[in-house]
């Protein structure tokens, strides 16, 4: 189930899953739940920019000959 959501199934596995989901409402609901859970994590976890000073110091450290 997780592998299907993450696009990690082989074409054959995917085919089997699609035909199973078509006839199994429980698995269909579970599949949708798992999918929504992935979406909410991706969308609601706040992403921040790295501080400019950090970027500058890393560029500096890896530019100057050591």
């Amino acid at each position: 189930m997780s592998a299907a959501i993450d696009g990690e199934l082989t074409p054959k596995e995917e085919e089997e899953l699609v035909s199973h989901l078509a006839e199994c409402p429980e698995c269909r609901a579970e599949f949708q739940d798992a999918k929504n859970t992935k979406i909410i994590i991706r969308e609601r976890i706040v992403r921040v920019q790295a501080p400019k000073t950090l970027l500058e110091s890393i560029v500096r450290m890896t530019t100057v000959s050591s």
Partner: protein
Amino acid sequence: MKDKKQLLSPQEELKQKEFQQEAVAHINALYNYALHLTMNPDDAEDLVQETYLKAYKFFNSFERGTNCKAWLFKILKNNYINKFRKNAREPGKVDYDLIKDFYHTIKDVQSDTTEAESDFFHSLLHEEVYQALQSLPEEFREVIQLCDIEGFTYEEIANMVESPIGTVRSRLYRGRKLLRAKLEDYAKKRGYDTDSGE
């Protein structure tokens, strides 16, 4: 005064150029991962800085053509374990005040998002989702972060957490189930009926 660049060999110059292009480009992802691990901006900065220093030192061992971001994440994770393991919190224990403070620190920055479709998800706050994620046992939280937030493949995650792909798969499955239950609790507290709809 001598120009420092003149001291560099052509190989070293090439290495620097490649490093800037390949590795430094991932600084935001690394910083976010470090923040989630340490929950502290100063520690996160230190961790990222040390990661880049180490990565630069060993850049020759980076296998060209593989995912540089995954390589950097692995270095960061190892650094984190060496540096902070002693003080690591126990699995399942969540310091809600720490999360509140953390969100207060970074609240100026909003993620640019499109919304999930269901009403139940609409009702959840960023902070609640983060608390739910942080409350998962580390082995589940880690794979969910690496997969859903950072977009690594199962193979890359397996390499990072040093476990077989099958283990990654089952941790993701179980982790998402646990997470879903926690998110439903938040939604219910807000008066949403999570059993209907969908």
